[in-house]
């Protein structure tokens, strides 16, 4: 920021050796190119009309699925939270399920619970926004605030529980996509969302989580 906050010279010099990359040879470049060429240009052929129709189907599907998926994710976490509180009064059989509840450090429980509630409320409004064709400024501002909270929680002891960390990771992604709606055109945004959902196996995980919740009931 200023010269005052610069690192000592010896540290700056040493830092430049952090993860020093090897030089790529021509063979390295060729090898990587083969994989890229196969991945980028050798996909199964599809007609332009077919591609457009597939993209449209994905758009419609994603427009409906994404908010529902996100709300379910939040619901799963809230369900786990409440299961913890109810465990002490539950019959023995139910306590087995409750033992799987989230273990958050005490000071973070309220904050995380409130954050999850706010995120659920925001995501619940998404289908209407999507039907309207664009998100309103208030929603984008809320998503931005919640994204910051998500990142703070990810860097806090609240993320020490692996399940809450995974959920926060996914919510960070969803919220980041919403925030980006103000700058990106819808199609490129949808492509990113589609890839993210695929890469993170969100839908299969959701089905598993919903099945787990049903089993607990």
């Amino acid at each position, binding site marked *: 920021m200023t010269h005052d906050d610069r690192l000592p010279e010896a*540290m700056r010099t040493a830092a*430049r*050796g*952090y993860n020093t990359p090897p030089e*790529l040879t021509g063979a*390295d*470049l060729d090898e990587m190119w083969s994989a*890229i*060429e196969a991945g980028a240009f050798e996909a199964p052929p599809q007609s332009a009309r077919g591609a457009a129709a597939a993209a449209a189907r994905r758009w419609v599907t994603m427009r409906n699925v994404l908010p529902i998926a996100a709300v379910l994710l939040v619901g799963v976490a809230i369900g786990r939270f409440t299961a913890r509180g109810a465990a002490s009064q539950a019959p023995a059989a139910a306590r087995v399920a409750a033992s799987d509840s989230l273990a958050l450090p005490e000071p973070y429980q309220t904050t995380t619970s409130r954050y999850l509630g706010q995120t659920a409320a925001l995501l619940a409004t998404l289908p209407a926004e999507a039907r309207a064709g664009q998100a309103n400024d208030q929603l984008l501002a809320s998503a931005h605030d919640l994204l910051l909270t998500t990142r703070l929680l990810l860097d806090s002891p609240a993320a020490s529980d692996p399940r809450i960390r995974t959920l926060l990771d996914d919510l960070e992604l969803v919220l980041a996509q919403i925030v980006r709606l103000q700058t990106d055109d819808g199609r490129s945004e949808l492509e990113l969302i589609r890839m993210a959902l695929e890469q993170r196996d969100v839908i299969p995980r959701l089905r598993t989580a919903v099945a787990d919740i049903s089993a607990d009931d």
Partner: protein
Amino acid sequence: MTSSALAFEARAFVSGEPELIARVVAGDRSAARELYDAHAPRVFRLAFRLTGDNELARELTQETFIRAFAQLGRFRGDSALSTWLHRVTVSVVSNGMRKVKRFRARETDLDEAGTVPAQNRDGDPDMRDKLYRAIDELPEIYRTTLVMHDVEGYTHEEIANVLGVAEGTCKSRLSVARAQLRQKLAPFAKEWLE
């Protein structure tokens, strides 16, 4: 590296770039290869700096170009292609690192740093390792900013464009990253000043 890391590339390559992009979008593989040759070393370099793992950096470089070629038709030229490409790189690396961390967390009880260990760590084993471990342990947004600025020599403007944040945010993140490093290395401050 004090001068802009991306500026040289941008100057060297920008002249024929729009035509090249149009050819790639039209499916011309030789144009794609030309574009790849011009940018791959830099993309790999950034991926390696952020991951510290040769194989992973290669995979992420490949993923970056596959994704970039798929989305190149939507590149509107609002920024330099190199900036856009580095934005894709940081996004791909970030997702890739999370996957690796999750996988490793599930498979083994690895070190608390939770990051991919670097391979090429020579030099003063003691002080350098302390510094590198401290950098490894920085939260992702701070580590990325610090690596891009203090290690790779990107300007604040370039980092802000790549990360999609304000320049002020970038400066603030760098300041926090440096402060955290100083704090972690405070017990050895004298040695660094000698």
